[in-house]
């Protein structure tokens, strides 16, 4: 069950606010009423945090906890090819440096640069190939959403026109589009859905 929006906001900020409150409270009370009390407050805070963390972890086992956007993104970590590509680009950068300070002769530079560039091209092609289905899927979802948006907009225009014709001043029973709210609710719904097949070798078996 998704949390109401204000609670969702509080929950999102709790991971920073909670330790801050505990530390501040412990510092103040510890200073005025003794270090022992300060430590007890820290201990209580840490105990609360550990219970919350382990409870959240257990909830995740059933798969009934929606992934946040950040968590979902973290599942889409770079593939092996992307990571190798970075390594090759770094090697190219180093090679340029070696050449600039005269530690490598032109012949070696040309051979090595050629080698790294062809490796980079191969990896870029591999990354592109991996991303192909994802890109198509994203484009399809976007197209569907845009189509839904224009249908809703047409429906709203019709309702407004009907209201004007009937001389009714009441607000029509059609949700006023709120970009931010719509985005939130959409993402909240999407969050529950299964993550897309991902690039890493093990991620295409999402439960």
């Amino acid at each position, binding site marked *: 069950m998704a949390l109401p929006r204000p609670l969702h906001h509080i929950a999102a900020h709790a991971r*920073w606010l909670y*330790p*801050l409150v505990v*530390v501040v409270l412990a*510092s103040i009370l510890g200073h005025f009423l003794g*270090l*022992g009390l300060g*430590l*007890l407050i820290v*201990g209580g805070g*840490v*105990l609360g*945090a*550990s219970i919350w*963390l*382990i409870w959240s*972890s*257990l909830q*995740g*086992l059933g*798969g009934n906890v929606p*992934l946040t*956007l*950040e*968590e979902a*993104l*973290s*599942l*889409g*970590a*770079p593939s*092996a090819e992307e*990571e*190798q590509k*970075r*390594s090759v680009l*770094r*090697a190219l950068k*180093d*090679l340029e*440096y*070696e050449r*600039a*300070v*005269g*530690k*490598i*002769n032109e012949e*070696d530079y040309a051979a*090595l640069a050629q080698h790294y560039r062809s490796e980079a091209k191969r990896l870029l092609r591999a990354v592109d190939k991996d991303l192909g289905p994802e890109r198509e899927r994203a484009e399809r979802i976007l197209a569907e959403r845009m189509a839904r948006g224009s249908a809703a907009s047409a429906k709203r225009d019709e309702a407004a026109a009907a209201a004007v014709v009937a001389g009714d001043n009441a607000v029509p029973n059609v949700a006023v589009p709120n970009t931010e709210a719509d*985005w939130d609710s959409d993402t909240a719904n999407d969050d529950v859905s299964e*993550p897309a097949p*991902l690039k*890493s*070798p*093990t*991620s295409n*078996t*999402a*439960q």
Partner: protein
Amino acid sequence: MWESLPEFGTGVLYAVLVSAAYTFAVSIAAGRSRPRLLQSARLGAYGTTALVMLGVVLLAYAFITHDFRIRYIARYSDRSMTTPYLFTALWGGQDGSLLWWLFLLSAYIAACVRWLEGKYRSLQPYIIATLMVIVAFFAVLMLYSANPFETSIAGARVDGEGLNPLLRNYYMIIHPPSLYMGFVGCSIPFAFAIAALVTGRLDSEWIVAVRKWMLFAWMFLSVGNALGMKWAYEELGWGGYWAWDPVENAACLPWFTATVYIHSTMIQERRNTLKVWNVVLICITFFLTIFGTFLTRSGLISSVHSFAKSDIGAYFVGFMVLIVATCTGLITWRLPQLRAQGRIESVLSREAAFVVNNWALLGGCTFIAVATTWPLFTEFFQGQQAMVGPPFYNRWMTPVGLLILALMAMAPLFGWRKTSGVSLKRAFRLPSAVMLSVVALHLAFGTRLGFPAYVLDPPTYRGIIGTVVQQLSAITPLITVAFVSFNFAVVYQEFQRGVRARRKNAAEGFFEALGMLVKKSRRRYGGYIVHLGIGLMYLGFCGKAWELEQEASLLPTETAEVGGYKLTYRGSRREVDQEKQMIFADLDVERNGRALSQVHPAKFIYNQNGMAPTTEVAQINGLRDDLYVVMGSIDPESKRATFRIHVNPLVAFIWIGVLILMCGSFVSLWPEVSLREVSAWSYVRATAGVTSGVMFAIILASAPAAAIENDRDVLSRQALAQEARARALPSAVAEPSGPESGATGKSFIAAQGVSTWSGLSILGGLMVGAAVAWAGRSRREASQLES
């Protein structure tokens, strides 16, 4: 809760074990077939971390409230101890130090799991699982063999035994945590290595990630060892800083292998070779951290550092067998994938220089490891332990050290893959010229300045070998100075060539080019700065060749002269505080006919049962040399006192070198900002992270200042006392003084002040870092939503 604190503490340790086992299982499941469980595993890791922290907080609370029902509290604290030392007692004994070890490991785990978000998706489950196995091992160890919450059978005492006075030293407060940070930090690269082996993701990218973690751990190993040296120098009173004690050796073994790894990983990155070697190095480094802990705590080899004998050795042996079996099995399984795809093409290449340096470092490491465990071998084969002493190590480690220095100095001059003769000649020209000039100057003026190039010691061995070793040893100072100057010239040349290249290509000013050079290539130039620091440390070590030592037995007003210092013995006095009697000797010091200062070496006799008198060294520290005075004994009747007076040249360069090494490490560790995060916030976040690091450096750097401040307090009090005595007011001296007014009390107050300041600094840094990270995170989320 506080009524049953010991039981609750033990319960928390059980909870740690259960939580670690649960997280391990979930991680494995996430890695095998259910990737969505990864989030549960991550939360489980955080939860385990929080539980360990709870255990530490409970133990700290027990110390603060003097809960002497707990055996550990009763043994390592008493009611007279001030708050900073009560916190120090957390790691002052075996049981608590294991919990502290686990706490630092948990901090690393939390940082690593946070850092892994969005990275290395396929490795993450196995990294977390490996780390949880380590956590579980330490939890089992504490629960079944060294529980810090165990109660005394005899019930609560009225007062505790107190912390060993030798540990009541500023450097002892920060030395163990630093060293543990280094030891524990090696767990993260190990977890990465196991994860890479299990998943078969053995490309070069994971090794890049590991390098930063290893560098971080390496920096703390360096700092921890240096702080240990500083403590030994100030507290033990034998005139030196490194005695090749088994525990010291055990602490430096992983430093060697970590150094090797930091260099050899570059070869894998650039040349896609040495894959097996690097994985093996990570495994060995982690193994050595556990082995070192085993040596310290099992009581197997006698050492001044050893904790009490206990049965935890068997647990460590079991864990070491598990590590060796797992690593060997996994490496053998993945051997086909670990085969090198590149090769070393020329001996005149940087990778070849690195490989030779690797072997030199590993040779040194093996030598120390064998010599340290030699008593075990001899006991096994001959039935009795035979130890090797410091002269043996000094004699044989010196050439190895010089070889490492030479290779360290030369390696940057080579290019990757191969270096042409012309490039090499050009690269060697300036450093060779500088080295030859310095050698000439040393030969010409060394003796006159008190630093002769040739120092002949008595032979250690008989016959021709003895003569050869003696002669080689005699020219060690000259060779060291030559190599150090070569190293400095190489570092200068590397910076100069880089700046010149940038100025040529980008039309930048000198300072702009220098800044951009370091910014664009932090790892490389951070490494050169580290080389500079290590060069200075070598210079400091070399000072031992010129040290002077003299024993003197003096009556009041008599004098002794050593190395340009003239010491006049003025008399002795006795002071008493709550916990000890202090016998001071007062000496006036002159140098070249000019009054320099006063020194007050002392003996402290603690009230603690069975505690031998401690030696309190008096020092005058300088860049050129340290005057180091130790009082041997004093005759209460005649006031005749015996002293051992050392003049230790260039010791300050060791501490300066360590600070430079830290700066270089920070430069290398400065976080790279990815293209996705190019915004003001990413830089601000990076700045916050580094600010916290620099603050830590300042805290460490300010330690000598604090110590000096303490000494100054003690000195000024003693000066006042002397003045009072001169005015025939003996009561001012003889009257027992409380801890708040005595020298020790002053030290405690100063230490408390420093600790408060340090605590506030860290708290401030963390709060700023958290706030900035929070803001940065919001910004990043917004960008992700936009995209």
